[in-house]
């Protein structure tokens, strides 16, 4: 039982990271209807930047983290301006293919600068476990989960109450009508890429603190698909829950497969098996919009 509880907690932490990355994915999808295949590489970019700043430039971790966030904002702006804006008006599929290309470019850049071996962040938090409900939990796990939760809370408030947040939702629903309100939709697109880069970078930094990073980190982006499809492609709450559920399920399934059948590596496929099942029973996800139908 304790074994499974432990798996559950690990799952929540990993799930929290998936949720963040899924949030970035959903924000872009909602605003621009672009399916961003480079989401995982944005995680990787953030993780490596923070790594370089702390380890290679010896900047204290907190500052390095804040600088990483600033860098992510710039990265978001750059991607929107240089890669996507020239494509406005093109077919969706072209834009999606460009994000696939962008993921290769980002991955190659990381390999160019940092190679392919695993890099480890310096220890920032104490290693002494904290005991929660009788279970020992590493402080870094707690911090990771808390950080994801806080970011989610901030973005929920932002989208619900702030002028820009409401304008982003309006733009997501109807771009031309949003323009008729005087909303500059190009700014909105840039904003959504910035948000996506920032939340992904935070996810990357958390992962770096827990596991260390290598140039395959981008594969995490693939795990986010089951999460967002479970949650419904265009729902923020869905992204949060989808990420958590996928995180927990894949950890628990993996543990169960290990314990009951002696199978290793089930974690890598569990999420996709879940994905297939979801698509069969709830094609719009748990929270996805169908279309409001009036009678």
């Amino acid at each position, binding site marked *: 039982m304790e074994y499974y509880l432990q798996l559950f907690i690990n799952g929540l932490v990993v799930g929290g990271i998936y949720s963040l990355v899924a949030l970035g994915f959903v924000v872009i999808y909602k605003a621009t209807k672009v399916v961003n295949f480079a989401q995982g590489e944005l995680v990787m970019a953030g993780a490596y930047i923070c790594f370089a700043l702390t380890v290679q430039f010896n900047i204290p971790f907190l500052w390095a983290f804040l600088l990483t966030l600033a860098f992510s904002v710039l990265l978001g702006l750059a991607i929107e301006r240089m890669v996507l804006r020239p494509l406005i*008006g093109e077919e969706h599929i072209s834009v999606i293919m460009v994000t696939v290309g962008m993921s290769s470019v980002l991955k190659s850049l990381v390999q160019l600068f940092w190679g392919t071996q695993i890099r480890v962040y310096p220890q920032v938090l104490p290693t002494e476990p904290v005991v929660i409900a009788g279970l020992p939990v590493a402080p870094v796990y707690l911090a990771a989960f808390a950080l994801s939760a806080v970011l989610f809370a901030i973005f929920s408030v932002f989208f619900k109450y702030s*002028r820009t947040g*409401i*304008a982003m*939702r*309006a733009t997501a*629903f*109807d*771009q*031309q*009508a*949003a*323009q*008729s*309100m*005087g*909303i*500059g939709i190009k700014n909105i697109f840039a904003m959504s890429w910035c948000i996506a880069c920032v939340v992904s970078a935070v996810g990357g930094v958390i992962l770096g603190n827990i596991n260390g990073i290598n140039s395959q980190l981008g594969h995490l982006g693939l795990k986010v698909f089951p999460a967002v499809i479970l949650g419904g492609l265009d729902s923020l709450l869905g992204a949060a829950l989808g990420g958590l559920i996928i995180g927990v399920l894949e950890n628990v399934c993996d543990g169960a497969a290990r314990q009951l059948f002696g199978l290793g590596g089930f974690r890598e496929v569990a999420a996709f098996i879940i994905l297939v099942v979801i698509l069969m029973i709830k094609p719009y996800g748990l929270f996805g*919009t169908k279309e*409001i139908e*009036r009678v």
Partner: protein
Amino acid sequence: MNAGSTVNEVLKVENLEVVYNDVVLVLKGLSLACPKGEITALLGANGAGKSTTLKAISGLLECEDGEVTDGSVIYQGEPIQHLIPEKIVRKGIFQVMEGRRIFEDLTVEENLRCGAFTRPRSEIAGGLEKVYDYFPRLRERRKQLAGYMSGGEQQMCAIGRAIMARPQLLLLDEPSLGLAPLLVEEIFDIVKRINSVEGVTVLLVEQNARAALSVAGRGYIMENGRVVMEGKAADLLGNPDVQEFYLGMGHGGDRRSYRDVKHYRRRKRWLG
């Protein structure tokens, strides 16, 4: 009504040509003017180019691959035909698009806030109060998702967004489309009030010519991308051609449209 009060024109459209997708010429040298503080009606059959005219003024053609290829749109003495929609809204022109275009998964109040996107934050609370005074039904539903409202309520919400934007020139695209006659009357009353109370100049596009001319000072009738007739609303209402082709008179018509004619005549007499 107040025709002839000033020759001061808020908006002047001169020889406007609009092309869609680089090939389809839809506006073929259209000219019109909106006198300050008045309601001007732009009438015409489906496909005449009325919506295109409004989008050319508000800059919304771009995302439909439409382009102004000739002529000019002069707003308060300044050409605006090459500005982006955001700038145009900030200059005080607001378009209520055809089909209401409500943000369905936002609440009514969030929709209204979007209308005030270009206004200082300090105006929002007062703006909301004003909209709710015009449309008490929106106040009741302000926390409700706009997509679940009836067509009439959505139209109120769309006009409410315009009130929030405090424009100097309001472009209304077929506000009566698909509404029951009673609601049409209510909407036109509000348009009239916004015009007289807020002092907003209105360019009103309609297929419902009778309703539009009953509130307008002047009217333009367009066909096939050009203005074919213009004049004071009262003159247009009395013109036999207009009566035959746009007011459905002279054909005998079906009962309902005949009753509408009588209704609006009575209304006009009453207003005048």
